């Protein structure tokens, strides 16, 4: 069975609640069959609205959503066959875990034996076989979450939507649940659309991430590309940590450019700038700038250490560099005896291809 390229397709979708503000603007998004796509963005960016439109709880103001090439805007939620995991689990508190899982099967009038088989299988999948007779209230948060996942999968939906499902869990549990959901996805190959505002979660779990801001998809790409090659300064700022310099292009040629700052000049990689005189924001990941670089690097600057914070596995160093007093460095904690002391002047170097000249903020 070949995987369909555009199994879920948002086609020019607009959404407005009050007729004044567009919450979602001209959204185009194709999701492959069996893919794990995360919608990532700050709150109010429209990602949950997109999910609700896909689930059928909201209707697009304009445009159409296709599921397996069928327009679904006029199909009510209960006929879409899309599983959904809610932020607060939404387990039915008056039913046992077994009854919760059997609910989607019972409304589909599946025979009793099949229901038992499927529910047992789903419970085994989330390793909760022993808990069928418990009430949801008797389970811990993580267990409830696993029940919610099992319930969304038990009726073999073609797509499963997850709306910040791990938001209520503590950090350790959240991490282990991330891997669990990822493994479940890998083993059954269901298409997952996942919504979160937690970038760590998105980077860990997804095949592709759609970064939302202001009702628009800013960038849709794999986690590594998103982190390494952000296409605009919002994505660069939102994903991971980021050092920025605001300046103006003074020269551009052969895939590199010179950026004139208030104090000094740096060489950068032109991403969204084309001509001399354009304003730009240059973005450099903290781990790409090195102290006392051994190899030859095309950017070498001196900076003054303003703050040192010990983080266990690494040390965060805040520098004043080229007039930017918020320049962050992450120094791995090794036996190397680096001269990291408050007030010291140190040499900093980075490669120009890691300094991405993006749109001005």
């Amino acid at each position, binding site marked *: 069975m070949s995987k369909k390229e555009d199994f879920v397709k948002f086609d020019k979708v607009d959404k407005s609640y009050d007729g004044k503000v567009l919450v979602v603007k001209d959204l185009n998004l194709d999701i492959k069959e069996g893919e794990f796509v995360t919608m990532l963005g700050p709150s109010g960016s429209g990602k949950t609205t997109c999910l609700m439109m896909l*689930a*059928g709880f909201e209707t697009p103001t304009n445009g159409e959503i296709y599921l397996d090439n069928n327009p679904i805007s006029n199909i009510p939620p*209960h006929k879409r066959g899309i*599983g959904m995991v809610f932020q607060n689990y939404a387990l*039915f508190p*008056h039913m046992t875990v077994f009854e919760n899982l059997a609910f*989607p099967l019972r*409304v589909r009038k599946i025979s009793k034996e099949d229901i038992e088989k499927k529910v047992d299988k789903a419970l085994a999948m989330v390793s909760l076989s022993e808990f069928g007779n418990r009430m949801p209230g008797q389970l811990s948060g993580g267990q409830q979450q696993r029940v919610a996942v099992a319930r*969304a999968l038990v009726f073999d939906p073609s797509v499963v939507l997850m709306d910040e499902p791990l938001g209520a869990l503590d950090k350790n549990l959240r991490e282990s649940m991330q891997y669990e959901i990822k493994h479940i996805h890998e083993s059954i190959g269901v298409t997952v659309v996942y919504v979160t505002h937690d970038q760590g979660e998105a980077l860990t779990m997804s095949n592709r991430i759609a970064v939302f801001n202001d009702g628009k998809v800013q960038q849709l790409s794999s986690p590594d590309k998103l982190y390494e090659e952000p296409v605009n300064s919002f994505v660069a700022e939102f994903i991971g940590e980021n050092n920025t310099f605001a300046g103006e292009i003074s020269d551009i040629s052969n895939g590199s450019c010179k950026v004139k700052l208030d104090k000094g000049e740096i060489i950068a990689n032109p991403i969204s700038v084309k001509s001399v005189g354009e304003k730009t924001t240059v973005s450099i990941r903290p781990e790409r700038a090195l102290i006392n670089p051994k190899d030859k690097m095309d950017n070498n600057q001196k900076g003054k250490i303003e703050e040192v914070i010990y983080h266990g596995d690494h040390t965060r160093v805040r520098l004043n560099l080229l007039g930017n007093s918020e320049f962050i460095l992450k120094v791995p904690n090794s036996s190397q005896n680096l001269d990291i002391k408050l007030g010291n002047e140190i040499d900093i170097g980075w490669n120009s291809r890691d300094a991405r000249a993006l749109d001005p903020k």
Partner: protein
Amino acid sequence: MSSETQKILSTDGIPLEESLKKAEKKNKIKAFLLVTPLLLFLIITYIVPIADMFSRSIDDKMVTNMLPKTYKAMEQWDGKELPPEEVFEAFYLDYKILVKNKTAGKLQTQLNYEKNGFKSVLKKLARKQKKFEEGNYKEQIMKVHKRWRNVEYWRAIKRRAPAYTYSKYLKGVDMYSNEDGKIVQVSEDRRIHRILWSRTLEVAFFVTLFCFLMAYPIAHLLATLPMKYSNLLMICVLLPFWTSLLVRTASWMILLQQQGIVNDFFVWIGLVADDNRPEMMYNKTGTYVAMTQILLPFMVLPLYSVMKTISPSLMRAGKSLGATPAVAFFKVYFPLTIPGIGAGCLLVFILAIGYYITPALVGGASGTLISNQIAYHMKSTLDWSFASAMGLMLLTGVLVIYWIYNKLVGVDNIKLG
């Protein structure tokens, strides 16, 4: 295991349990002192009156106290034939005192309850006894009226000998113990109380049902609307609640009477002819309409408080799992509102079963309830013991309903807010 736990000592070497008790004793005393005023208030205003009501309803000392000598003499009498001379003499002496003290009327009324026609016999005796000579009272009394020769009348006196009686309770369900001491029903044309009891239950049941049917959608709307609309709606629900009961009932009288607004409207839209206006007041319809409106907030508020806690994502979850909106409602939403339904229904039913003012004003003859009968006996016939008996029967009925409810739904499931 238990021996191990007993060994646990606190750092001072005192057994842990003991030191825990000691530590908490002060708090317990404080807590008790805090609730004492309320406890006393409850005892004085609630328990004591009910106890008083109960003692009134079974108290029958009045006759016993008025005829002390008679009852003493009657102890030996088996009640088969006319009593011996001593009983007649004792009765004459007791009665003489009553006539002298001008309290004979009470005895006449009480004994007339027991045996019809006793009053006139006693009145005649009161007039004639002044001329009685000493000795042979049996002959003299029997001469006053031939009924004194009928053993039934003497048995009637003897029946009132016990200081306590349950006859008021029997009367409350249209029964009495006849001359032979058997419990029988009163004649069919006098069975008024049973009609009232069943009507009270019927009205309470249907008012609860109507309230439920109307309150459920309102409460749902209240719980799901955005704040600014739901606040307005809440005020609409509560505003009548804050209005005086009498005002509300009176406004229903204005609306429902034959020349009232509702009837005018019906005539205007041509639903009924002008000369054939339906009677919507002074019957059960009026009672239903007014009571449903007045008790509605008691149903809306518990339902609302429960619905407010039901996450809207549960219905969404139901739908996303493939349930039609109707199935999702009945399988997911409705079961979760049962605690509110239980609380609301219990509240409305119990309030309705003892409702007084509204049925009294708009109920007419066919719309009055048992509480109106109780009030009638309190105010008009002054038969307080009977009123007390019926009041207690009402209270028992409410407790029975509560007990049944507890068995069916479980009181733990009630949620009043």
